[in-house]
């Protein structure tokens, strides 16, 4: 058995171990590899940066815990930026399993980022039927958000003062591991011309870039890398930044395995001939 035969027969558990170590070991060391900010992320930052103080923004945390490492750091970094800019943020979720995570973003905004409850940030909870909710906001938010998650009526919430529909809401951000940013883009942007930003898992990112190119999205945060870039922009490094070292090393190891696997395959085929 030559080296190529051995390479082709590496046990699966060995590959798992190498990948596991390449993910685990970089987390132990405090170093950060250089990270370039991509244009779709920079454009999101610039758009929020240029919003006047007190502008209304919807932050729709449309994700569940299974995609938390990619999406939650995005939501926190965006919330930090919006709290710093003193925007009025309406947090909601269109994913039934997203309520707890959206509530976590709300609590962090109040406890860690200095946002004032119901003046700067409102938590609205989960809304079933994404289409009806997004279209309803376009007509009159009073009909959709009758009260916040804690039961405080619409008229008693200062953050809603003077806000009727997407004319007053300057931006809608949908962070998701599914197709919900496309639903926001289709209805909020397509029908009402609202500005929409997508924060998605890496799996979803590739299919959303055409919409960014056609300006249907202001920008896109794609996967843990997008979250790390935004963390860098707001200078608050968190899980995503720490994870980038692991991603880089794991990707390198995987590329190495793919190259070695292909060489072994072609060498074996050549030998058989």
């Amino acid at each position: 058995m030559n080296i190529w035969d051995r390479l082709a027969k590496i046990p699966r558990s060995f590959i798992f171990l190498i990948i596991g170590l390449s993910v685990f070991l970089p987390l132990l060391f405090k170093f950060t590899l250089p990270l370039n900010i991509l244009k779709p992320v920079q454009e999101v930052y610039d758009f929020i940066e240029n919003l006047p103080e007190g502008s209304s923004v919807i932050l729709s945390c449309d994700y569940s815990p299974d995609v938390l490492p990619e999406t939650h750091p995005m939501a926190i970094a965006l919330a930090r930026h919006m709290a710093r800019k003193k925007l009025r943020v309406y947090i909601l979720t269109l994913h039934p399993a997203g309520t707890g995570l959206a509530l976590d973003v709300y609590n962090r905004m109040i406890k860690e980022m200095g946002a004032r409850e119901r003046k700067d940030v409102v938590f609205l909870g989960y809304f079933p039927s994404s289409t009806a909710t997004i279209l309803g906001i376009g007509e009159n938010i009073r009909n959709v958000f009758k009260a916040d998650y804690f039961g405080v009526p619409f008229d008693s919430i200062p953050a809603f003062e003077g806000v009727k529909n997407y004319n007053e809401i300057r931006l809608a951000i949908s962070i998701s591991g599914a197709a919900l940013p496309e639903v926001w883009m289709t209805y909020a942007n397509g029908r009402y011309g609202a500005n929409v930003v997508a924060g998605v898992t890496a799996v979803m990112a590739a299919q959303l870039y055409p919409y960014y190119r056609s300006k249907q999205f202001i920008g896109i945060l794609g996967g843990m890398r997008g979250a790390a870039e935004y963390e860098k922009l707001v200078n608050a490094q968190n899980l995503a930044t720490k994870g980038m070292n692991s991603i880089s090393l794991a990707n390198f190891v995987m590329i190495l395995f793919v190259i070695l696997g292909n060489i072994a395959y072609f060498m074996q085929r050549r030998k058989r001939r």
Partner: protein
Amino acid sequence: MITTDLWIWLSAFLTLAIFSFLYKDNPLYRFAEHLFVGISAGYYGAIYWHNAIYRFIINPLTENFSTFYYKIVWPELFEGKVYLIPAFFSFLMYLIPLLLGLLFFTLIIPKYSWLIRYPIAFLMGVGAGLALYPSFKARILDQVKDTFLPQFSNSLHFLNAIIIFIGTFTVLSYFFFSKEHKGPLKVLSRIGIVFIMIGFGAAFGYTVMARISLLIGRFYFLIHDWIHII
């Protein structure tokens, strides 16, 4: 120092139980998997009950009914019949959709299961009506417009626009099955395959990155929240 939080211990145990599948299928893994399925079903049930059924059906229904009822019993307290019709109308606005929704359950009674056609027809009609224009505009018109009428400010953007145009045209040629792929059509479809493969490659690369991110999330939880070594 390792955490003393019982919930984090439980999470760590379940994470390791799921990871044990990497070795082979075992009772610990199956326990964690079944627990996840059961808890998810319960959690989703509770979320739908509180956030959808109670919030959007029961609460407004009872509110409107009680208003309507008391306005009939003690009309003198509510300025006569002025508000009677709007209150009754509001009540019906919730009652009719509720009854329509309940027709879905006729599926379990074979004799009346044909009634399910009404809510399905309603949903299809409303869904198609709502989606037709925005979906066509957002996913087709705007995309076609951007492909054929791109905005470019420098030569690099112009080059991008040409590549996208060639990509769109050749990929569409690949999916043109009304004519045998021979001659010029064969060349175009071959170029189209290259673009498709590049697209698949990009999607696969992103998918790998996504899966690694999830593993990072779990490892970070174990060493940061559980055993506190970072």
